């Protein structure tokens, strides 16, 4: 179920350099959203909505959290919104992570940059499902690190920064050898990272969450497609994804 709703900003926090957390309130979204789903946000003065993942939610309070980084015109404008303002959202959108077979399994979460937010919501639901969580979180530099403690509360967490100013130095794939064994993985981040992860873990069953420029966000305009690995056509990231089986799609 998808709806167009207004979400009132409850709280606005700077969680890292140029990275904001909004706590929004809406019962419809908080009741229907599953991990990996996203919101399509209308920003004043812009033609296209902006897709942002759900980072966390609380069904009882109706609160839904998003974390976003200021990268361009849209996110810059969104960052000027203040508590009590309401934002126009379509959601919850897309197909999230499938967690039904994770009971008592060990699950590796691998997130890079703005790919980290949806993994937090996923991690919480996995813990509820009695899975054991290991997280690898990759950031550019110390100043851009967010949610480190939140992930630590879920399980072992390996932080990696490109410049080594915090945690390990390097890329998320550089610490893969340290995490021990796991049954499955879920990853979200920039495409080069996803490709590297997919290659390194080609013998493990896993899921990846993808990004692409979007129009409608609901599957009608065919803007956000990704070729399937069988060469037989495209899947729509906004509707069939953003989460896919790692083997299902071709990252180029």
């Amino acid at each position: 179920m998808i709806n167009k709703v207004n979400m009132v900003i409850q709280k606005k926090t700077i969680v890292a350099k140029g990275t904001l957390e909004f706590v929004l309130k809406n019962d419809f979204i908080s009741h229907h959203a599953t991990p990996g789903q996203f919101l399509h946000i209308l920003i004043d003065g812009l033609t296209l909505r902006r897709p942002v993942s759900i980072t966390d939610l609380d069904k009882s309070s109706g609160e839904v959290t998003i974390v976003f980084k200021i990268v361009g015109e849209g996110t810059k404008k969104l960052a000027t919104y203040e508590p009590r303002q309401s934002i126009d959202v379509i959601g919850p959108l897309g197909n999230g992570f499938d967690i039904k077979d994770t009971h008592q399994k060990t699950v590796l979460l691998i997130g890079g940059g703005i790919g980290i937010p949806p993994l937090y919501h996923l991690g919480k639901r996995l813990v509820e499902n009695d899975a054991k969580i290991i997280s690898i979180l990759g950031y550019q530099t110390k100043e851009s690190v967010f949610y480190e403690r939140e992930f630590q509360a879920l399980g072992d967490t390996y932080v990696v920064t490109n410049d080594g100013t915090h945690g390990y130095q390097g890329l998320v794939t550089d610490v893969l050898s340290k995490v021990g064994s796991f049954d499955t993985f879920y990853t979200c981040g920039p495409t080069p990272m996803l490709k590297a992860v997919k290659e390194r873990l080609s013998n493990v069953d896993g899921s990846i969450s993808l990004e692409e420029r979007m129009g409608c966000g609901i599957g009608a305009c065919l803007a956000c497609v990704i070729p399937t690995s069988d060469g037989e056509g495209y899947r729509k990231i906004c509707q069939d994804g953003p989460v896919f089986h790692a083997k299902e799609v071709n990252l180029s």
Partner: protein
Amino acid sequence: MNLSVNLPGLSMKNPIMPASGCFGFGHEYSSFFDLSTLGAVMMKSATKYERLGNPTPRVAETSSGMLNAIGLQNPGVVKIIESEVPFLATYDTCVIANIAGSSVEEYEYVAKSFNQTDHVDALELNISCPNVKEGGIQFGTDPYMAAYVTETVKKATNLPVYVKLSPNVTDIVAIAKAVESAGADGLSMINTLTGMRMHLPSQKPLIANKTGGLSGPAIKPIAIRMIYEVKQQVSIPIIGMGGIASAEDVLEFILAGANAVAIGTANFNNPLICPEIINELPNVLNKYGFNSINEAVGKGIIHEPADISSS
């Protein structure tokens, strides 16, 4: 307030329809509102065979607009008739099938195919998609080619044919007159303007196809001007489109000569835009003294030469 509009093949309860390519085949938007509220639905362009479309990125934001280069991705006319038309047929709204092709034969083939179903009320010929270059672009910018494809399709179908004009031309009136002479039952205008953006970090065009079609409020004044010019020179009806996002916009188009209108890009901004405009339209017509849509059609046209320059 009487919102009904009767055009060849289209007996519509109101003049509002989603534009081709911006509404898929209706499924997704049907979860937001009852499609029966619409005057009509214009389906995504159909080609003879499945088309996979262009690489991504396929869209980009521009000031008050967007670029798209989807590349006519569609499952092919047979699948559309099998799997998509029956869904739309369950709603009380008119269905317009949009046809694209790389050759006159392809247009003819697709048009004939739509004769196989009872649920399509009219055809719209997309002779102007700027994102397909195998020849498609030629139809929309050359009056002879435009007339030729129109004539061929008219012979192949029993359905009324609306020809969708490209704004990327020096003289849109010449194309409009050519397709009218060739038997078009109506016009739909405008398609997108060809545009481009550069991506500074990669120093490459932002859209993988390089160019894309510009749509949205940015192009509204161009659409209104073209409809105004064409209306005075043809007698077939016009379905207007290009940047419409409010009931006031609809009235601007109607005053300039449109008989009905389609809404494209605004659906992405607000999936409820069509029903909201349908709701608001009676108030706007009323505010400006009209009792029906038909009363307002072309009312803004001043019948004298367009130039009043003073020397």
